């Protein structure tokens, strides 16, 4: 299978003008210094490039196959959006190369735009005072879609995204979730081969997030569209993407299957117990017990040291259990675990495990 996206040694640095620091800084104030100096490169020694540069992305390499669902995760300022903007041709890289559908995005941005869709969670392409139908019409014209085909495709998306009642309502009167459904539907109008989603569920409630995830997953399966997603939301990644790239401070930390990420970087599971009668005692290495009330207990279990099925069998044998649930680790904890692994002195167990899980 041919790679649909190929990235080789892609780098991006942003020049930071020295002008203000140099001329406007008050003489009694200390010179500006950066806390995370690793991501900032001082080029002041270079006479042709005075000032500093901020490295948004250190050289990265990866490939994406057609039909894959791939997540790009990391904290704020990690380089996720910068990468997506280079792959869609909005930003020009400082170094390296990338091909999307065989095209170099920043050189063939217009050609590429016919084959990719973009959804930026914090921005809108819908016309605020007009119903979504008008934006659909506009995009039909912009993408040169023949009229008959356009109507067929629009009606199909309206049905699939359940937009019927929203289609003629001014965008300003739609909820954020309804608007996002429209945004994604509009992005699919021209049958893109790749959909770039930059924080598509940001600001949405749990139920709407799940609706959006289901729609994206269905489109990936039914139309074979490649999904390239950036998100802060761990559940987005777990429920949508089979492969994950973890990035922090412009460096790629992990590239592999989402399941591997879970087993490799976080081996803690959370067990919630509700007993029929008060009284629970369990002192074993690899298990941390927290009493929530008389009959409810939370156990944080290190699955590398304790076999969870044996533990469960033991508890069921010794106590009258009314209810029990075992929770997988949250993506946030996995990211934290990667950081902890790279910082050998910090070995404590994650303190916060996810409270709820929506599947």
């Amino acid at each position: 299978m041919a790679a649909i996206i190929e990235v080789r040694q892609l780098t991006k640095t942003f020049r930071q003008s020295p002008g203000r620091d140099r001329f406007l800084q008050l003489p009694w104030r200390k010179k500006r210094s950066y806390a995370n100096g690793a991501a900032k490169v001082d080029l002041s020694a270079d006479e042709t490039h005075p000032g500093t540069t901020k490295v948004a992305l250190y050289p990265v390499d990866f490939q994406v196959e057609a039909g894959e669902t791939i997540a790009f995760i990391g904290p704020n300022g990690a380089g996720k959006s910068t990468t997506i903007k280079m792959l869609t041709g909005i930003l020009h890289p400082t170094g390296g190369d990338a091909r999307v559908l065989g095209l170099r995005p920043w050189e063939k941005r217009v050609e590429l735009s016919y084959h990719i869709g973009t959804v930026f969670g914090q921005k809108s392409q819908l016309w605020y005072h007009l119903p979504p139908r008008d934006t659909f019409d506009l995009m039909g014209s912009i993408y040169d879609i023949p009229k008959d085909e356009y109507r067929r495709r629009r009606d199909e998306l309206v049905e699939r995204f359940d937009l019927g009642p929203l289609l003629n309502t001014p965008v300003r009167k739609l909820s954020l979730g309804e608007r996002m459904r429209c945004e994604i539907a509009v992005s699919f109008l021209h049958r893109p081969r790749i959909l770039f989603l930059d924080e598509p569920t940001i600001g949405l409630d749990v139920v709407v997030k799940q609706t959006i995830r289901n729609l994206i997953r269905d489109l990936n399966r039914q139309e074979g569209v490649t999904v390239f997603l950036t998100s802060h939301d761990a559940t987005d990644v777990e429920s949508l993407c089979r492969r994950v790239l973890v990035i922090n401070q412009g460096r790629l930390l992990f590239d592999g299957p989402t399941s591997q990420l879970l087993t490799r970087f976080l081996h803690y599971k959370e067990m919630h117990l509700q007993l029929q009668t008060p009284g629970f005692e369990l002192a074993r290495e690899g298990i941390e017990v927290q009493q929530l009330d008389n009959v409810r207990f939370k156990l944080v279990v290190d699955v590398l040291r304790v076999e969870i099925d044996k533990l469960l069998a033991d508890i069921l044998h010794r106590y009258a259990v009314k209810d029990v649930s075992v929770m997988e680790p949250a993506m946030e904890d996995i990211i934290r675990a990667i950081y902890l692994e790279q910082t050998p002195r910090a070995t404590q167990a994650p303190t916060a495990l996810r409270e709820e899980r929506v599947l």
Partner: protein
Amino acid sequence: MTGMTRVTGWPVPARRHTRRLGKYWAVFRISLRNQWAYVPEQSVQGIFLVVIMYVFAELWSTTYGTMATSSIAGYGIASVVWYLAMTESIVMGCPRLAMRLSEEIKHGEIAYRLTKPIGYIGYNFAQYLGEASVRIGLNIVLAGMVAALFFGPPPASWASVLLTVVATALAVSTQFTMNMVIGLLLFWMEDGRGLDLILSRLVMILGGMMIPLPLFPDWLARVCAWLPFQVIAYLPARTLVHLRGYDIGQALATGCGWMLICLAVCTFLYGKGVKRLHVQGG
């Protein structure tokens, strides 16, 4: 990247699809419809225009009364008031493009513009034209009502009205290209409000927004007649109220020249600026 082959099977457009006029027409239409939503709000702003018109009408009436003359540099009182109605309508009706582009760059909405198969300058022009059409149209109705109420219909022939439509289209286009230059400079600068303010004041003073150029000192009028600022205010207003003795062919040619020069600057700046664009992250 050696050894990479283009993924086949997808029809990559062979020619510049950004040049298809149909898509810009679609942007113009949606912008026009979107602007209709602002008509009530703009009607309120129109009150300000009506007040300005009234104040200037009184001011010029006093001036003409004091000088005990019915004509200054060929302009009667009705001509001057209709001249003002026209210039105020156009200048107040042109959208604040530089501010909008500044917001788009700051907040990252430009990302959506650049990932669509449509030219960035052309998209903005079509949108600007749609907005300006509604705003200027409404302003002309309101200002015209005040002028007609106190001084009667404009001293214009049908030919001058038709030529005014052409001159107004040229004025709006030139205003767009000049604003777009400022907007594109935002790829390098952080704030374009200063330049935007300077441009608007130049149009106000040197463009003849408040006083027709023939009422300027002779040397200044001659200089201003060759500047781009008069294309936005003086050219369409003079065409409407005082076409006689005006070399309209030369005036329109000068206007077209300035518009094309600014357009060329826009194209140059866009080509350079888009490569160094710093879109805000998500």
